[in-house]
């Protein structure tokens, strides 16, 4: 049976996480088709066509899909998905929003946030905020799956030469509409795709002090993150939150500054390759997972780090 992957994109470009989802599809095995549904998204479709391992790209370019409204997107994917053995997308907010609707409309279960493919019907996924890992087997004819991108190495972005087929399948439920959006503007890499992440916690004391970390982040080409404590205290916006209820990251280097290491935070970053912790409390739980720990006052250590880079 073949696999349908629904691409993550912002109409203009393909999001890198799509390459990680494709990697999960390759691990399952079978022909892989990619659906790019959006408005003015042909560039994203072209990018998907050159990714490694893709047989065919389906392009649904219509205003109904422009903002990825779950009602319309799920109707389209349900319609297309009947011919596939697996339907995959990333466990980002778009996938989490529309894919359970697809599963319900196909009358099958969804397997959320998989971190490993054991076989075509058996997958591993974290439960209880990552405090346990479940291995689950599905007996459904169509497996509907969201993939934790950071758990899979991406396939190559170039080298493929899939055909792009335009669909004129327009599903407009008419029950929902886009009103507005407020997206954080940043020149830094996206948090979930960054090679290096610099995160601050309650120890930063206020939002202004995050500028210190920004300097370090910019020198390293890193994304900025934060603990829930820092977000709840209003130091930084909520889209910076790393943890069980925020973003799950797994960069090559994660630098935690003034973060104690609550279990919910660890659930969001313990997949990082190398973890550095800077905290003045040597008993802080973050040191139990850090490869390199520095017990120091961050207000002295961070400017020193900035100067040393």
């Amino acid at each position, binding site marked *: 049976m073949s696999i349908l992957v629904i691409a993550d994109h912002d109409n203009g470009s393909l999001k890198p996480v799509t390459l990680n989802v494709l990697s999960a599809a390759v691990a399952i095995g079978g022909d892989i088709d990619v659906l790019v549904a959006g408005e003015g998204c042909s560039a994203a479709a072209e990018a998907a066509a050159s990714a490694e391992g893709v047989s065919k790209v389906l392009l649904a370019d219509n205003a109904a899909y422009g903002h990825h409204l779950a009602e319309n997107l799920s109707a389209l994917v349900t319609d297309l998905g009947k011919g596939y053995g697996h339907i995959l997308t990333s466990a980002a907010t778009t996938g989490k929003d529309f894919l359970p*609707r697809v599963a319900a409309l196909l009358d099958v279960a969804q*397997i959320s946030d998989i971190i490993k493919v054991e076989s075509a019907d058996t997958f591993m996924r974290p439960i209880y905020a990552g405090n*346990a890992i479940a291995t689950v087997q599905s007996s459904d004819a169509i497996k509907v799956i969201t993939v934790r991108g950071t758990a899979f190495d991406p396939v190559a972005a170039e080298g493929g030469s899939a055909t792009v087929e335009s669909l004129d399948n327009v599903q407009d439920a008419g029950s929902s509409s886009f009103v507005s*959006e407020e997206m954080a503007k940043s020149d830094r890499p996206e948090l979930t795709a960054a090679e*290096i992440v610099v995160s601050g916690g309650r120890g930063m004391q206020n939002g202004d002090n995050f500028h210190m970390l920004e300097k370090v982040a910019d020198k390293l080409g890193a994304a900025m993150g934060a603990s829930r404590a820092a977000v709840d205290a209003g130091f930084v916006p909520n889209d910076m939150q790393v943890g069980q209820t925020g973003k799950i990251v797994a960069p090559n280097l994660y630098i935690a500054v003034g973060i104690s290491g609550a279990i919910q935070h660890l659930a969001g970053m313990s997949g990082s390759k190398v973890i550095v912790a800077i905290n003045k409390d040597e008993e802080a739980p973050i040191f139990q997972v850090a490869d390199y720990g520095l017990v120091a006052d961050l207000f002295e250590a961070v400017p020193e780090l900035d100067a040393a880079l």
Partner: protein
Amino acid sequence: MKVLVAVKRVIDYNVKVRVKADNSGVDLTNIKMAMNPFCEIAVEEAVRLKEKGVASEIVVVSIGPKVAQEQVRTALALGADRGILIETDQEVQSLQAAKLLKAVVDEEQPQLVILGKQSIDSDNNQTGQMLAALAGMPQGTFASEVAVDGDKVNVTREVDGGLMTVALTLPAVVTTDLRLNEPRYASLPNIMKAKKKPLDMKSPADFGVELKASLTTLKVEEPPKRSAGIKVADIAELVDKLKNEAKVI
């Protein structure tokens, strides 16, 4: 306007999770249980809508063992008007939960259904969306603001990279994110009053739903443990290690 809120009984947020020695699941014997935190936010939002005069009646529903009455009573103490418990000792997966809730929606005909975005045990993040699909309703998931306006509801959603606001035609499903509100505590007089509020006991069979699960959990394991590394003396040593040992900068 009638509001339906679904709540789930789960392990208490503050309890440390332990995997059973035989890897069959998580040990829940003698563990403190509570209402799922995202469900508390759902109840709070419904109560605020009633206080604003937008909601006229709040019905709270749960699915689970008989003791899940505790969580329904908690919701009643927080301000819900009446409760329904669909009693079962079996494991209920998201799709079955959504089918049961769809049956309740058919009976109760609410204008708004509010659920938590996910439960902190199975972490699926599915039931609200599945219910919306089965009931043919639009959905506003991961809500950080809910504003009812005539026959529409505007929902501001927490999405990757920021916030997105959608307008939904009622009836609709909303799932709550953490920052939607801060739930209140139930007062003692309200806890006493909640004991007299109606609570209907139902079974899955009453709604003609068969609890047939298509997912089997083969095993549950502890996540791989990270071990503590070394302590460095100063920034110079840290930078040296990152450059020459870990080779990450």
